[in-house]
């Protein structure tokens, strides 16, 4: 990371930059390896990090959140503010990419790129994706729906759905894909699911802060419709991530989302 206003004495500094950077990195790594010796060893039950906080999540996890998957219960109920921030990070990154890559005045360069992008009818890809896209969509919905019962959840399920959409765009071209997902649909999908996520999470924060019962039934553990808010939130996050993955891929590969 050299400073790049190239005045005279900075040239002499730049010559030593690789040496300084390498010694800095080796120094930091050596320091960290020495610190490892003083840190608690791997996998001991008595480590300080396995204290009352993690024990509470394990013991009361099912009771408080109703989710079999303790991690899903933790990220969507105990520490829900982090996951809300995370969904905002994804939303911020997508809008930043739209600012940079979405060229609204399609100059000569972009139209030329579209001809190159239009996939000539690639029989192998189309037949493979004809089989795969359906299965991937079903698997993505499964991962989202069972976020609170088995590993998975909104983020991984959403990116599986996004991958299915990318495969479809690659094999059948953007013109056919933009029938069911173009920029306006994308905008509404991401905005409404984020609004839904923010409103429901805000509601449960507000209720919790003022010590009022949030009145959301937790259902019988193990059922699909159990664990209170976690399922709808997973679905909302899944839609946000699926839309984001598709939009980022199309913006990168074609620079234009019709």
């Amino acid at each position, binding site marked *: 990371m050299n400073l790049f206003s190239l005045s005279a004495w900075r040239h002499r500094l730049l010559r030593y930059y690789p040496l300084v950077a390498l010694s800095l990195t080796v120094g930091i790594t050596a320091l960290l390896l020495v610190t490892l010796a003083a840190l608690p060893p791997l996998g001991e039950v008595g480590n300080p990090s396995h204290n009352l906080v993690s024990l509470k999540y394990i013991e009361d996890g099912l009771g408080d959140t109703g989710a079999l*998957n303790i*991690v*899903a219960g933790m990220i969507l109920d105990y520490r829900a503010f982090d996951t809300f921030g995370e969904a905002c990070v994804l939303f911020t990154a997508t809008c930043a990419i739209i600012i940079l890559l979405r060229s609204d005045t399609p100059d000569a*360069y972009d139209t*030329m*790129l579209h001809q*190159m992008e239009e996939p000539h009818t690639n029989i192998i890809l189309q037949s493979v994706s004809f089989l795969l896209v359906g299965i991937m969509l079903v698997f993505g919905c499964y*991962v989202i729906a069972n976020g609170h019962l088995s*590993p*998975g*959840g909104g*983020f*991984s*399920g959403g*990116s*599986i759905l*996004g*991958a299915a959409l*990318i495969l479809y765009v690659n094999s059948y071209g953007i013109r056919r894909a933009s029938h069911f997902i173009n920029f306006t649909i994308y905008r509404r999908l991401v905005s409404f699911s984020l609004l839904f996520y923010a409103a429901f999470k805000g509601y449960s924060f507000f209720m919790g802060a003022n010590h009022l019962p949030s009145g959301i039934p937790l259902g019988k553990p193990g059922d699909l419709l159990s664990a209170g808010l976690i399922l709808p939130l997973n679905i909302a996050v899944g839609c946000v*991530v699926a839309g984001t*993955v598709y939009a*980022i*891929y199309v913006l*990168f*590969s074609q620079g234009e989302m019709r």
Partner: protein
Amino acid sequence: MYLEMALLLYLIVAAVTVFLRQRLLDAVIIYASYSVVLSAVWLLLLAPDLAITEAAVATGISGVLFFVVLKRIQAMDAEHSLDEEV
């Protein structure tokens, strides 16, 4: 025990090879393989949530994005060589 050692060794070797390879395409392919092996390591650490997230999100999105950026850069090169000829 030795499976863990082997996978972790692969991670370090892949990280160093990415740093040494000059061609971008090799570096990106090795990074994608690094990410897949890392999601296997999460399974060994008994964190299946991480394994599916790493596989779907880290390899699925950032791995694919690196490839798309390279494709776009080659497309820009082709477009520029088109300009020089004209």
